[in-house]
């Protein structure tokens, strides 16, 4: 279990003068939480993720992981960068998933087993022998996610990990993240531009110019319509429909999370998609 504490973090990029991006920012991510980090471009989402991982060092304040001060080489978390091309290291899909495991000194059998399992979970196993650069953007993102899962880290720091993945596949991968959190008590922090991706998280943290402007459960967040609008974001239409249904007493007592779920309840769901 991983708990991350940001204690009075002050951070500024050395090439930018003036006010720091974060000024004495404190935030605690509890063990097993799934945090959706949202906010406009430039709000500091990616920077905050990198500070948590120790990739960027704050000029003041402290990052603690399970109470101990963070040092840069601490492998407590697997990190998924926003651009998958920057993170792919091997020409062949399966080898890319195995790379970090090999670096960690695991034996070949374990590496093969874990790589296969991770690729199956993200739906890429049939591409295992293909060249990584022949994968589409969405598939490359799944590949990087598979690499992170294969590490079995107790914490996942995910920077807009599903931006190139299409709608239904995205729902599948979000469900997968939910499962991993359930099964392994994994702590997850995920940035996104799309609020559909925070419907299932346990906590939403909204940043604006380096300050936390919202911190609470998604259901509460989605009621903050003017705040959401001010951040340049939009309440997902599905959430609006769900709220309207509750208000109109249609299928009351059921929390509707997705179109598939609603159609399933009405008995008209289409067969499951291939991906």
């Amino acid at each position: 279990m991983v708990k991350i504490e940001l204690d009075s973090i002050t951070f500024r990029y050395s090439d930018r003068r003036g006010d720091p991006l974060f000024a004495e920012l404190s935030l605690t991510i509890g063990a097993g939480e799934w945090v959706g980090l949202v906010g406009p471009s430039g709000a500091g989402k990616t920077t905050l993720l990198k500070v948590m991982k120790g990739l960027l060092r704050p000029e003041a304040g402290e990052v603690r992981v399970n109470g101990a001060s963070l040092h840069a080489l601490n492998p407590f978390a697997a990190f998924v960068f926003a651009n998958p091309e920057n993170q792919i290291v091997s020409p062949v899909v399966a080898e890319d998933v195995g790379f970090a495991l090999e670096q960690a000194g695991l034996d070949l059998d374990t590496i093969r087993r874990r790589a296969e399992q991770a690729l199956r979970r993200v739906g890429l196993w049939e591409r295992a022998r293909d060249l990584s650069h022949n994968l589409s953007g969405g598939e490359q993102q799944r590949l990087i996610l598979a690499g992170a899962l294969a590490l079995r880290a107790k914490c996942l720091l995910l920077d807009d990990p599903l931006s190139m993945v299409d709608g239904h596949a995205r729902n599948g991968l979000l469900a997968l993240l939910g499962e991993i959190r359930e099964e392994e008590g994994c702590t997850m922090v995920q940035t996104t531009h799309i609020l559909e991706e925070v419907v299932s998280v346990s906590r939403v943290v909204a940043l604006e110019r380096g300050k936390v402007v919202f911190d609470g459960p998604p259901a509460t967040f989605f009621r903050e319509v003017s705040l959401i609008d001010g951040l340049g974001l939009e309440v997902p239409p599905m959430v609006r429909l769900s709220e309207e249904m509750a208000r109109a007493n249609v299928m009351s007592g059921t929390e509707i999370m997705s179109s598939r779920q609603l159609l399933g309840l009405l008995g008209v769901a289409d067969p499951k998609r291939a991906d």
Partner: protein
Amino acid sequence: MLKAMDISHTFDTGSASLHWALRGVTVEVEAGETVLVTGPSGSGKTTLARIVAGLERPSQGLVRLQGEDLYGRERRSTPPAAQVAMAFQYPERQFFADSVWEELRWGLHFGLGLDDEAIRVRLLKIAQELDLPLEMFARRSPRQLSSGQQRKVALASLLALEPQVLILDEPLTGLNARERRRLVELLRLRLRQDRAMVVIAHELELFLPWATTVVVLAAGRLVFRGSPQELVTTADSAVLAAVSLPPIIEISSSLKRHALSEGPVSDEVSVVLDQVRRAVQGRDSG
């Protein structure tokens, strides 16, 4: 205007089993039209875009631009930028210049051979059309702009070339809701009678209301070609499996297909709420 006929393509993987990225795909876009290409990741969307943009010679098939073979022996393999321009995913990652002006100037100078005055005229025009504050940005590094503005600069550098066919690969990726709506509005306003657009997108919400034609790919094959209206009312399970309809439309479409709703397929929450209510009543009383 642009026609790709019976395109099949494989990347030479060097392995025994050939993976066909595209198999027998035919698409066509006429002047004044916007063709929306969609399908799951890995279905061949980007490969098709690269082929019709003249960037990747297809293993089989023919691409014709204004009747001329795009990969014909008699012409250069890359069409002049004035004819076809393609914006890759995250086009701003290809920024190379130290200033926005230099970034925008490059293609006009080296691609089209325009002189400084002609370049200035074009850039001021495109900046005005895109609502891009060029006098403020001109000397700044493009990388210092917000993601929405970076995307705009990247697209402006292509639009300034005034291509006859503009191909956009996932132009909204990484942008937030407000940036998305603005960009789509700008693209929509740009569409003219003598120009065509091909948009690759997996999220259809903002494109369906105005696309002329939708093409759906699945595992490299074309499984659907028709109007947005035909797409949202299709009962073809192969198409439904390959396309991510916006959730509200998906609900409305599914209720109609299962005869639980009589109304038109809608993307409006209030209309679909009513359709769901009737469906529940129908189910409970039936």
